[in-house]
């Protein structure tokens, strides 16, 4: 049995008086990657922000990381335990060079910065201010660069493909695989099955378009509706349904099930 890396129990979150998350429950096992689909405003980004510990939310419920309750921990404490996050729209920070941010966040891996920056076509960006004037794709590649060197055990990805052009999406996909430890070369001494069992990194991905799933194997899909998980299923089938019928179908199903419960 794989151990549980992330467990969310009856998580509620408010912004002011408005309840955004209304009792979210989730378990992610070591080595698993989950995807969250959901219409705009369903609470996807709020969920990741609350899991990462950002301010601006009133929170109730429990968040357990490797069994440890992290609900009241600060952002940096969570990060130092091994949780990382790729932002959908990270802030631009004037005067702070991408290189100095990475040198501070990934101490001891200075020699890898140039190597990965080159691989992600970001060599010229290391001496630029963090996210200042970056295009959508450059932002996402810079997020990946920071996270790969940070090496989190559990990574949250908020729409890693948004704003990325078609040319770059394969690159984003490839390095997302590396980030979550799914980039495995065949090994003569081990079967692929054994290699899969060795996967230790986990991920939770928000995707609006689902394009990233063409490059990344996701184990379980969820639909977030009105602040709760409405559905858990095979992510491929889920994406197929959403692409064909839109979130209307999810709403229809969600309402029916809610009524049945009543």
């Amino acid at each position, binding site marked *: 049995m794989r151990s549980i890396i992330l467990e969310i129990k009856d998580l509620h979150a408010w912004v002011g008086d408005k309840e955004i998350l209304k009792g979210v429950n989730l378990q992610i096992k070591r080595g698993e990657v989950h995807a969250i689909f959901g219409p705009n405003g369903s609470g996807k980004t709020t969920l990741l922000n609350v899991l*990462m510990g*950002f*301010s*601006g939310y009133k929170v109730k419920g429990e968040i357990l990381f490797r069994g440890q309750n992290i609900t009241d921990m*600060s*952002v*940096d404490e*969570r*990060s*130092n335990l091994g949780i*990382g*996050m790729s*932002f959908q729209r*990270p*802030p631009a*920070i*004037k*005067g*702070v*060079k991408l290189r*100095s*941010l990475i040198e*501070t*966040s990934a101490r001891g891996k200075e020699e890898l910065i140039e190597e990965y920056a080159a691989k992600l076509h970001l060599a010229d960006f290391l001496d630029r*201010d963090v996210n200042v004037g970056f295009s959508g794709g450059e932002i996402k590649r810079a997020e990946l660069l*920071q996270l790969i060197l*940070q090496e989190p055990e559990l990574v949250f990805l908020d729409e890693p493909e948004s704003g990325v052009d078609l040319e770059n999406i394969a690159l984003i996909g490839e390095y997302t695989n590396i980030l979550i430890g799914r980039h495995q070369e065949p090994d003569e001494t081990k079967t692929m099955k054994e290699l899969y069992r060795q996967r230790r990194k986990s991920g939770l991905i928000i995707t609006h378009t689902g394009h990233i799933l063409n490059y990344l194997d996701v184990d379980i899909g969820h639909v977030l509706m009105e602040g709760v998980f409405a559905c858990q299923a095979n992510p491929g089938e889920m994406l197929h349904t959403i692409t064909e019928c839109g979130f209307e179908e999810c709403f229809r199903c969600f309402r029916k099930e809610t009524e049945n419960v009543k």
Partner: protein
Amino acid sequence: MSNRKNVPTDDLDISLYHEVAASHPELTDLSQLSPEDQKVLLMSGIDPSGKERSGSFFQKDHSVIHCQTDFEGAEIISASKAREKYAWLKDYWGKAVPVDKDYYTRRAEEHQEHGYFIRSLPGAEVHYPLQACLYLSEDKLAQDVHNIVIAEEGSSLNIITGCATAPSVRSGLHVGVSEFYVKKGATLSFTMIHNWAEEMAVRPRSAVIVEEGGTYISNYICLVPARDLQMYPTTILRGKGAVATINTVLLATPGSLMDVGSRVILQAEECKAEIISRAVSTGGKIIARGDLVGEKPGIKAHLECKGLLLSDQGVIHSIPELQGRAANLDMSHEAAIGKIAQEEIEYLMSRGLSEHEATSLIVKGFLSLDIIGLPDDLKKELNRMIDETDTNAM
């Protein structure tokens, strides 16, 4: 009988400071200074080894104890000595900063204990900077200096000056009259770093005259604030196409007052000026003034003044002014005072930085101006200084 002329108009108590200093023996080399003094010098932009410098000047209290020029096209000596050596210096002395401008200019003329004279000869390319340090080692001493800088026609000159106090000094008065002359087609890049004791009162009085096609770049950095600093240097762009860039970086801690401005008067066609300031207060008061006066058509001038206020006890008072006095000119200003966005701090914290590390990185980023036209090694040095700034108060 009290002489009204001999009292400062600000409320500085001059009687706190004594006027007579012990004299100090000369040094053949700045590396003969004590390690403590050398450390202060390094943090003030002065390299005691003199490596990659075209010359050095060191004044301790009222004595010039080291003075050496290592480049043929330039000269760095005591201003008093220069006055004896060059009769023509009278055409410059007091011509940019009038002697009777205020109490401090009068007292500098009356007391004047040296100061530096720096000159680049016509056409000379002085690649490595000349460095000058005005140092106070005696507590409660008044130091009055008069500095003259002349970049002759077509020359290019780099200067770093550091004004600092020895670690044992808490209080003192520094009055400095500085006059700069940038001749036709010359470029002067002048970087001044102040590194004062917490109880210092500082009164620089400076003016710059730039002739046709000349360029003046000024960088003023004060990250170790004094109790009371007041300066408002004026740059006059006198000749056609003259250019001035004035950068100011200030950090005010609790208890300090920094009233720092920059004025540029654009008197000829095609002149350009830019004033940029960055002010951070962790509890002190900063008055960030800026004044651009456009007197001829076709001039272009911009003023940018940004403040970061990190404490409710602090004050940043930004006073940008523009005066247009001709048709067809282009003048603008932007001023902003804000705090650090929580979103930026948390973004960095999500990468594992503590709140303090994140704040400090953002503040240092805010202070690190991308200064154009500065030699790379100097840029690196400035960034090092900002990096080493004590951000514990933040």
